[in-house]
């Protein structure tokens, strides 16, 4: 990342000019995104009549923050939020701990069944979620877990982890496959056992992949709908996606579209802040960490 530091230290017109086409493309696309997402933000502070008259960006009747108050008013948002935070964080940590070693082994070693395991992971991702979740629900229900809140939470996390294992492993496979073998060879010569080599050397080297997949996992689990709907069928267990999806639905049915967009903003903000935190603080740090 020495490159980046150089740019920061001095402004080089010639260099910047060379990058101009890149700037233009990126700026146009970002502008497009700003207009679109800006429209959602504007709509959330507008009224339904204004939105459908095409005046969302003009605010002919002023700003309507009461949409937010109304959207927030349904209560229970705090419970949903804490539940989602718990499910997402614990599942993400467990996923990394379980999947990184497995992906490493699958990427690095040839052994009987390697390809079969990889193919089963991939095909598992193709199986529709309804076909996985509904039969599992039958099994879990028969175990009598559903009437106990704490056991249900553990079950939910277990399922979030299980469901995301194939995705995480397939994602990490290439990252390990592309790492140079010289590090392991050097470590082996030094007498370092392979498992230690993994945790001490290879795991940190794949961090950009691990963080990327963790961001995806986090957002997936935060927004996960169907599994949560079926398994978290008690108010105390409900995560944000299910709780707020209902809110969106009700705003549509009552024709309160401005309120719906306000609800969207409320759902969106936590993921956005967490995303900013994860991507800026962690990705930035890691790329520096490996190369430096």
């Amino acid at each position, binding site marked *: 990342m020495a490159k980046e530091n150089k740019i920061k230290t001095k402004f080089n017109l010639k260099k910047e000019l060379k990058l101009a086409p890149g700037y233009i*493309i990126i700026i146009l696309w970002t502008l497009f995104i700003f207009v679109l997402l800006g429209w959602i933000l504007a709509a959330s502070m507008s009224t339904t009549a204004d939105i459908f008259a095409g005046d969302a960006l003009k605010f002919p009747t002023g700003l309507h923050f009461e949409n937010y108050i109304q959207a927030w008013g349904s209560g229970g948002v705090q419970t949903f939020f804490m539940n989602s935070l718990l499910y997402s964080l614990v599942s993400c940590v467990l996923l990394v701990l379980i999947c990184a070693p*497995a992906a490493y082994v699958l990427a690095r070693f040839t052994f009987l069944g390697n390809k079969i395991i990889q*193919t089963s992971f991939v095909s*598992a991702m193709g199986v529709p*979620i309804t076909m996985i979740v509904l039969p599992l629900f039958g099994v879990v229900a028969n175990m009598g877990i559903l009437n106990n809140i704490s056991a249900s939470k553990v079950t939910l996390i277990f399922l979030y982890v299980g469901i995301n294992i194939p995705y995480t492993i397939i994602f990490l496979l290439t990252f390990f496959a592309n790492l140079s073998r010289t590090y392991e060879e050097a470590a082996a010569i030094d007498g370092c056992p392979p498992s230690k080599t993994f945790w001490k050397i290879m795991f940190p080297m794949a961090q*950009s992949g691990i963080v990327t997949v963790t961001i995806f996992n986090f957002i997936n689990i935060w927004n996960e709908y169907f599994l949560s709907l079926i398994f978290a069928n008690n108010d105390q267990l409900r995560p944000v996606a299910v709780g707020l999806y209902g809110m*969106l639905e009700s705003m549509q049915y009552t024709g309160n579209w401005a309120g719906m967009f306000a609800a969207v903003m409320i759902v969106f903000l936590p993921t956005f802040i967490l995303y900013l935190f994860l991507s*800026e603080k962690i990705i930035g740090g890691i790329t520096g960490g490996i190369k430096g």
Partner: protein
Amino acid sequence: MKRNKGMIIGFLAPAVIMFLLVFLYPICRTVAMSFFKIDAVTSTADTWQFVGIGNYQKLFTTDIFKTAMFNIGRIWLLGGIIVLVLSLLFGVILTSGIRGKKFFRAIIYLPNIVSAVALATMWKQYVFSPKFGLLKGILDTLGFHELAKTQWLAPENVFWALLFAYCFGMVGYHMLIWMSGIERISPEYYEAATIDGSNKIQQFRYITLPLLKGVFKTNITMWSISTAAFFVWSQLFSSVTANKATIVPAQYMYMNTFGGGNAVTERNAGYAAAIGIILCLCIVIIFTVCNAVIKDDDLEF
């Protein structure tokens, strides 16, 4: 290799055990279900009626399923080209040393975290609106008045409208995958190339692209998987049940699982399972082909 046996087992066991617990039973059940006529996914096995390969036979003779497969095929191929090219372009630009990289990266990824319900509503009611739509505004400003009158959501155009809206949201995700790949390429390659006098485009062609083979594979696999599960966007762009122009297999499956629209229709979870199995096979084929074509064993850097 022998001495690694313990480690292989130890590292794989947790993942494989979890996988078996969560997936094995449902998958086997789904495969079995696809040979039966079943009222609801949750029906117990004693109410299933064996129909052999009847469900599959029926699928391949049903026009609407063929339409759905054709639509998803178009989304996979055309959408895949659009998304992977755009996201690679953005990834390369962002890693080329421009200012505000982190800012741009965050903004481009942003649409991925906004709820699909909101995004789709925005596209349908704002961008594509024939009255005050953003697209109409842009085309009018550019002087294409005839084009500006296009009914983007009419059956003739809605597929393209849907494809574009969906791709818009997916670019950021694939861009991140590309970027995490590009960032792992040692800057020394580029420094050496710059000293040798090669320009940015040559560097991209001869350094970046070959070294991104593995990441390319990841991108294709991920794109295929999200395409197979493609459902919400079609649902949001349709009327009550599905539109012929935008119907996809997952949506057809949903109609056969939970009933379509407001009317109560015949449901057959076995038929739905067969659709799932076909989608699943498609993914396995794509993955296998990718593995065979793109070998990254010889890549070392």
